[in-house]
């Protein structure tokens, strides 16, 4: 998984370098600062995902398997589950930060055009969807300690992945909008 992470970090760093070269640090826009946030989230995501791979989570095992485990192994799974929850937060923050980057970029492309109002509405939608996603992760399983409960089985809502299936769904909802916006934007022609 770390091999997958390296090219992503490379792309982000290259982007920052390119922006520093073309506009200079002093003229950095919102999306450049958010890129730093993206990078942090990306590193956080890589680390947590990598750890959960070795520790295991409460998603992966049946109760029979768990009962056969030593307390040490169960403890590892508890830590793994906590990290998995953390990974959910960093993952969603990362995706939505990327959307934000895109919004800044669109905003720049459409500055002065009437489509810019479209970008503003998109901003509202994306902020709203992030709040929704954040609440889904936070409140999907209550109380929150159950997220890393291993024995007894915390239930479907709390085995970390299942409770939050709505977040990628929200994500899939807003992404096509952004992608089509990308094409629709006639200003894009000036780029290429």
């Amino acid at each position, binding site marked *: 998984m770390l091999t997958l992470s390296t090219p992503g970090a490379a792309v982000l760093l290259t982007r920052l370098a390119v922006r520093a070269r073309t*506009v200079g640090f002093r003229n950095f826009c919102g999306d450049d600062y958010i890129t730093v946030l993206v990078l942090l989230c990306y590193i956080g995501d890589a680390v947590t995902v990598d750890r959960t791979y070795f520790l295991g989570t409460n998603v992966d095992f049946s109760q029979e398997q768990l009962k056969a485990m030593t307390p040490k192994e169960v403890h590892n799974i508890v830590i793994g589950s906590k990290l*998995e929850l953390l990974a959910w937060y960093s993952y969603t923050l990362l995706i939505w930060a990327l959307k934000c980057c895109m919004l800044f970029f669109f905003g*720049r492309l459409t*500055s002065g055009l009437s489509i810019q109002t479209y970008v503003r509405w998109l901003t509202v939608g994306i902020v709203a969807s992030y709040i929704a996603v954040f609440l889904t992760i936070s409140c999907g399983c209550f109380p929150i300690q159950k997220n890393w409960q291993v024995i007894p089985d915390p239930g479907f809502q709390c085995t970390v992945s299942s409770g939050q299936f709505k977040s*990628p769904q929200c994500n899939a909802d807003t992404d096509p909008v952004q992608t089509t916006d990308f094409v629709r934007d006639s200003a894009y022609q000036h780029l290429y």
Partner: protein
Amino acid sequence: MLWNLEVSRGRKFSLSLLLFPGVFVIAAAVVRVVMSLQASPSAVNINRWGVRETLAGIIAVNIPILRPMLRRSFWRRGAMTTDRSKTPDASATFGSRRTPRGWTLSSNSAHVRSYDPERQGNVAFRDKSRVVIEMTDHTSECSSNPSQRRSDSEEFIIQRPQGPSRHDPIAGNNGVLVETTFGNTVEYQHEDFRPVVPRGLGQEDLNYVRSVSHNN
């Protein structure tokens, strides 16, 4: 939508290539949902698709920003300039300088004002009138602070071709000079490019300005 863009076929192809990671992100998200809902979900598989998704997302978002790397001046020392070697020769028609590629003489958001060399900033049109058009690199400059852009602007002066003029509100004028600056007083509307016409500036001048900006 992509096929309706008025660009060459090669460009359409590369555009769709650029947009592909975006599609992949959506697909990965859907796969992730399905994985999460399966009878025996595995955190490893879910995370695996998540990481793929984020990677594709990062690439999709950042690729347009990396575009200047393809310009020669990016790798040269000194201040970065736009590569002018590829621009169509506009100087023959439009006077002293060319429009650099990647910059738009913003036909869509052009801010035009009359400019009096004698009395700077005077809006009234005099004998030696100029049309001042904002030229913005929309791809790299922040849009939030127009005053900040001023320092980064490139001056860009175009002379109106000599010749008899059908409708010349500025009689005896040598020609309209178009230059970039980021100060502006009159705003153009996007849809029909019909601005609040400054006094002394006729429709013909606007048409001319429009043709200039569309030729880029």
